[in-house]
């Protein structure tokens, strides 16, 4: 059959063949590109983790003797066990087996649970999750699911291309069947045809997809060359990537090519032969009643509208993937832009703008008491003092935070607070006899500076209260208004100690403004600033202190990134020998934040465009099959007197519905959802509207409309250019 029939069929039906080949090439390209990108993204992520945190799987922080070490090294599945001081870093051959294997080692060596640390970030990249972990990392599984969904969508593009020519093929194979072709012969013939049509496009798609991925990585490397902390992405191609993408494409071709055979198996040869003649595929399919869409189109646009509605209904299955992809694409695109706009405005107002002048460099000194930076008070030997001496440092404050509680009596509340119902009403708590108090312990010198700034007596014997509480009833969280928290009667505060007893702390003063720090204070906590000298007398009895100490540094006015980087390096150099420090600077953080946002936009945008591409590919595949699919339909319209203008109108309506539906659905979901988000974030509508992404949304919508219009124009041109009277004369021409 292959030699006799298929070769001549393929030669004489180049259009159908080209549609299938184009679909196979496009889908294979995207499949290969997606799988390669996903794999390279994974490799890059794993490499980043390895570079930043090490490539070990398990770390045992205990001194192991030689025998124990040998036991680990000889353990099945252990790749390496490297010792460095008191730390042994273990790598397993199969990272996914880490938890199971380590449990056995652990048991054998009778290790203390606190001595064993799993590299959870790295292991999660191999889909290894701790047994019983209630919230295992879901990002990678999420990406895999997204990838799988996209692969299925792309596979369906190929299937759709095959489906378009199916009707005619079913009839032809019905004829074959009626003259004695066996089901096996038909299946083999279809398979050979599919292989002949798709082998090269699929292989070509694989190569192009790989090349596309390499191109994307090169572009990302160039684009993100200045992103701090980023390493260069190197293109990798794993045989598994080829196996998955080629397997998915080949399997789809295999399955899709058998569609006519499957349809034939469910029909008698007679039904298959008749299927084309009466426009239906046997008794199973019957015309359904007109849908609401057809009726509406008919009412609005006349008979052409109704015919277009009917045509869209019959193409419903073929266009399903396109419809879903385009809708998701537009919805995703508009939602993403709205979300990023909203989030950008919000972050700007709540973070960058608010803290613009509050910090330049922040250093976190891990597991360190503030006292360690000023071991002998504010002397030249203390790190706190030395930081101030670093060139370019305009100001610095070292501080530690503690979450304590104080005894509260509503009679201490300010008259404004009492007027609102007191603390319990505003903070919505039942028991207001003990309320939270945030304590910021500052180095003495800075505290004295703060005393001068607020007009408080320059003493180290008391605390300064930030005397304000957010009036949540009269203002939004975005534009907060504050009222005084306590009566300024000078009465000492009563702090609860670790053992539930109390201690009196004198109040030096009441301030309306906090010192210049990058701190967010709790809404309903009484914030106090305390000198280190005073804290030292209390520290033994308090239990809410945090482990880390912070240093806020201001650089020169109008400092640039280079200056702040230099200050950062100096501070790190000063502290690193004695402490474990982490630092960040404002300009770099803003740049990183901007680039991350841009990167996230690009990735999500690319995903949306990819989805749109899948949808449009389906539409192009469908319209390329017009000649085969719809010649008879239009011949019938011609026979009853429809003129070319009417036919063009029909096509325009179809294209408008196909392109308009995802846009309309996308807007119908995005607009109320965005309005809800704007309202929930208590943002003024006009603030959002001033920056709303109208232009990109309009451009993307226009792009979808133009692409669909182009697909229909190409399909319609070929169909209307063909001899439409032929199908009416001769029933065998199909």
């Amino acid at each position, binding site marked *: 059959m292959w030699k006799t029939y298929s070769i001549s069929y393929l030669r004489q039906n180049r259009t159908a063949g080209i549609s299938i080949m184009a679909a196979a090439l496009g889908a294979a390209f995207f499949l290969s590109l997606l799988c390669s990108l996903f794999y390279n993204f994974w490799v890059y992520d794993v490499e980043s983790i390895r570079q930043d945190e090490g490539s070990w799987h398990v770390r045992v922080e205990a001194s192991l003797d030689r025998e124990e070490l040998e036991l680990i090294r000889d353990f099945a599945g252990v790749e390496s066990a490297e010792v460095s001081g008191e730390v042994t870093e273990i790598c397993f051959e199969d990272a996914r087996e880490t938890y199971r294997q380590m449990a056995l080692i652990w048991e054998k060596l009778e290790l203390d649970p606190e001595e064993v640390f799993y590299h959870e970030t790295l292991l999660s990249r191999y889909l290894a999750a701790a047994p019983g972990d209630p919230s295992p990392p879901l990002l990678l599984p999420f990406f895999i699911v997204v990838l799988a969904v996209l692969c299925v969508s792309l596979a369906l593009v190929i299937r759709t291309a095959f489906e378009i020519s199916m009707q005619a093929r079913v009839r032809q194979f019905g004829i074959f069947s009626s003259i004695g072709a066996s089901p096996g012969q038909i299946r083999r013939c279809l398979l050979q045809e599919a292989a002949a049509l798709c082998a090269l496009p699929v292989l070509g798609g694989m190569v192009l997809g790989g090349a596309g991925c390499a191109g994307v990585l090169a572009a990302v490397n160039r684009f993100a060359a200045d992103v701090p902390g980023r390493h260069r992405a190197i293109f990798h191609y794993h045989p598994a990537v080829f196996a998955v993408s080629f397997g998915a494409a080949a399997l789809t071709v295999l399955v899709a090519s058998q569609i006519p055979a499957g349809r034939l198996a469910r029909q008698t040869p*007679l039904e298959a032969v008749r299927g084309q003649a009466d426009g239906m595929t046997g008794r199973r399919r019957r015309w359904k009643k007109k849908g609401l869409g057809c009726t509406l189109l008919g009412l609005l646009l006349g008979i052409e509208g109704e015919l277009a509605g009917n045509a869209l209904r019959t193409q419903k299955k073929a266009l399903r993937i396109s419809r879903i992809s385009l809708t998701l694409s537009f919805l995703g695109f508009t939602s993403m832009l709205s979300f990023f706009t909203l989030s950008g405005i919000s972050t700007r107002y709540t973070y960058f703008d608010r803290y613009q002048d509050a910090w330049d460099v922040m250093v976190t000194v891990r597991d360190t008491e503030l006292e360690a930076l000023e071991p002998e008070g504010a002397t030249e030997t203390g790190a706190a003092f030395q930081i101030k001496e670093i060139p370019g440092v305009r100001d610095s404050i070292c501080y530690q935070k503690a979450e304590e509680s104080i005894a509260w009596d509503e009679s201490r509340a300010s008259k404004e607070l009492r007027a609102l119902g007191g603390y319990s009403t505003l903070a919505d708590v039942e028991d207001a006899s003990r309320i939270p108090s945030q304590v910021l312990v500052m180095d003495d010198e800075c505290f004295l500076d703060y005393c001068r700034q607020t007009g408080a007596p320059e003493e180290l014997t008391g605390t300064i209260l930030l005397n304000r509480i957010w009036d949540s009833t009269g203002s939004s969280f975005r534009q907060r208004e504050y009222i005084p928290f306590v009566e300024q009667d000078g009465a000492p505060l009563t702090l609860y100690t670790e053992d539930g007893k109390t201690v009196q702390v004198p109040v030096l003063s009441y301030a309306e403004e906090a010192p210049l720090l990058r701190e967010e204070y709790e809404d309903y906590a009484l914030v106090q600033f305390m000198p280190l000298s005073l804290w030292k007398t209390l520290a033994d009895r308090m239990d809410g202190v945090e482990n880390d100490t912070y240093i806020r540094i201001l650089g020169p006015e109008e400092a640039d990134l280079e200056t702040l980087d230099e200050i950062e390096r100096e501070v790190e150099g000063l502290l690193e020998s004695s402490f474990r420090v982490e630092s960040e600077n404002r300009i770099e953080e803003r740049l990183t934040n901007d680039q991350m946002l841009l990167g996230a936009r690009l990735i999500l945008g690319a995903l949306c465009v990819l989805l749109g591409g899948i949808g449009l590919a389906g539409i192009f595949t469908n319209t390329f099959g017009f000649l085969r699919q719809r010649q008879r339909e239009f011949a019938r319209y011609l026979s009853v007197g429809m003129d070319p203008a009417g036919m063009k109108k029909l096509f325009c309506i179809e294209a408008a519905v196909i392109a308009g539906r995802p846009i309309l659905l996308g807007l119908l979901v995005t607009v109320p959802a965005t309005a809800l988000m704007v309202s929930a974030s208590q943002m003024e509508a006009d603030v959002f509207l001033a920056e709303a992404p109208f232009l990109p949304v309009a451009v993307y919508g226009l792009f979808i409309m133009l692409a669909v219009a182009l697909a229909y124009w190409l399909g319609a041109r070929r169909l209307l250019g063909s001899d439409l009277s032929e199908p009416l004369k001769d029933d065998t021409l199909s």
Partner: protein
Amino acid sequence: MELLRCTGVKKVYGEGENRVEALRGIDLTLERGELVSVTGASGSGKSTLLHILGSVDRPTEGAVLVGGTDISRLDPRQAALYRRRRVGLIYQFYNLIPSLTVEKNMQMPLLLDRRKPDPDYFRRIVESLGLEEKLQALPSQLSGGQQQRVAVGRALMSRPLLLLADEPTGNLDRRNARELMDLLHLFHRNFRQTILLVTHDERLALEAERIITLEDGRIVSDRKVR
């Protein structure tokens, strides 16, 4: 010698309100070498009967024995072999493969069977059909009458036990219809071909040796004309 026997053949299409009984218990025998016409009004079930005999459709009930084999019980592969080797079908709308030449269309049943056509037999058929000049043409390059002659040739290529023709002249003009009927007579006479001809044309039906009349899915008359 009996070639075909139908016993209690029924055919029902659809379910519920759409249920249509196309055949309501057909009992029929055909002798080898007979030329039989089946006639009846539109919807009487004559084409359904022919399609069941050609194994392109299955009876809902009953048995169809051809050369001792019940073709209503064949699996798809066996049914294909039956259609390929033992029966030839001619349709009103020719049902030729548009992408194949006349020669290939005619030889298709043999090619499907991986058999080489007997050149002598093929030449005789082609000459009988008057298609010598058209062997390399495509169906779209032929007239309706020529296409139907190709369909006849294809049906005869595997020297079938039974030639089934479903309104073969229904799509032809008077002259072409006459020519086709002459051809069928010729093959019946020269090759002792058993032919079952479905037609609603009384005059054509009268050219057969035996006329079976169907009405509402039942045989209402079965008479020898000659």
